[in-house]
């Protein structure tokens, strides 16, 4: 089990934070382009899910799985989007994302008055805490290399 990388997007699609821990494959495009591609894909998936769903969706899109990795998605009612790529065996990633939102983002970005909203997060403390939370989680620890 392992965590690959993390994207945090604002309501308008600005990449607030990107972090990676264990990434073998580079996509071959710049980080900025990649984040735009990622946001565009998520946006499309959201509308795709809304249309194809047989019943009224509440939370909507939760995750998708490919042969090598799983992309977990959490969107808050304010439109903040958390995207975490892990391997396929990881469990309870949703709770980890909730924690990331309530224990790290809220505490170190929202409660930090000099952290502007809707702009990439500069705070070193925040970056440190994200790293700490991820490395603490059992998903990260149990990685088999």
């Amino acid at each position, binding site marked *: 089990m392992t965590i690959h990388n993390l994207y945090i997007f604002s309501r308008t699609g600005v990449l607030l934070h990107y972090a990676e821990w264990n990434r*073998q*494959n580079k*996509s071959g495009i710049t980080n900025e382009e990649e984040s735009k591609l990622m946001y565009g894909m998520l946006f499309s998936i959201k509308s795709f899910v809304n249309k194809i769903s047989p019943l009224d969706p*509440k939370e909507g*899109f*939760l995750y998708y*799985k490919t042969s090598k*990795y799983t992309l977990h998605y959490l969107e808050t009612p304010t439109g903040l989007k958390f995207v975490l790529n892990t391997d396929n065996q990881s469990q309870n990633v949703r709770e980890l994302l909730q924690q990331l939102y309530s224990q790290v983002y809220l505490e170190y970005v929202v409660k930090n008055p000099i952290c502007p909203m809707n702009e990439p997060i500069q705070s070193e403390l925040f970056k440190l805490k994200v790293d700490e939370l991820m490395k603490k989680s059992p998903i990260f620890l149990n990685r088999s290399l």
Partner: protein
Amino acid sequence: MVIYGVYIVSKSGGLIFNHDHNVPKVDNEKTFGYPLNIKLVYENKKIVVSFGQRDGINVGHILTAVNGNLVIGKELEDGKDVFEMLDDEKNYPINLKFSRSKMTTNEKIFLASMFYPLFAIASQLSPEPRCSGIEILEADTFRLYCYQTLTGVKFMVVAEPTQPGMDILTKRIYELYADFALKNPFYSLEMPIRCELFETNLICLLESVEKSGISSV
């Protein structure tokens, strides 16, 4: 145990087959007094609930009938404008019927070709090398299984999230496709599948899976 639908997408991204299996109908009828306590807007030639969900009428539902008369666009069958009617206090109490919008064939084709780039981007954005596209996509109301064959045809099954064995089912549908569509001399590749035998066998398969699980096939 519900399977909602089956889609087959060709190598070039076109929808070549689709079958709605068990799509639940979401219908709600309610009598309203003046003033109306939900907000309706007109978009995409439909009257849609935009705010104020209550009694099973959710945001995104479409107004289908007023006092039993069908709504077409923003007018009733007899040509009366629905919004004028709703604004007039004399018409109350009024009975409105709402339902969740059904996908038209055109929308299905549109969605199928929309899935194609999503599938490709998912493999491009992969943190691991040599990764496939989306195999399972889960939302809170359904789970979509996608199986891509070596020849590039995609078999997609939309089912309840708890339904097990759907990945095997996609492969069984592939077998049916190989047997009844590809061996049909009147079927040309990349074109919509209109083979009666394929359809009857597929329905048979879906029903037996729903009844007794995947182990029976």
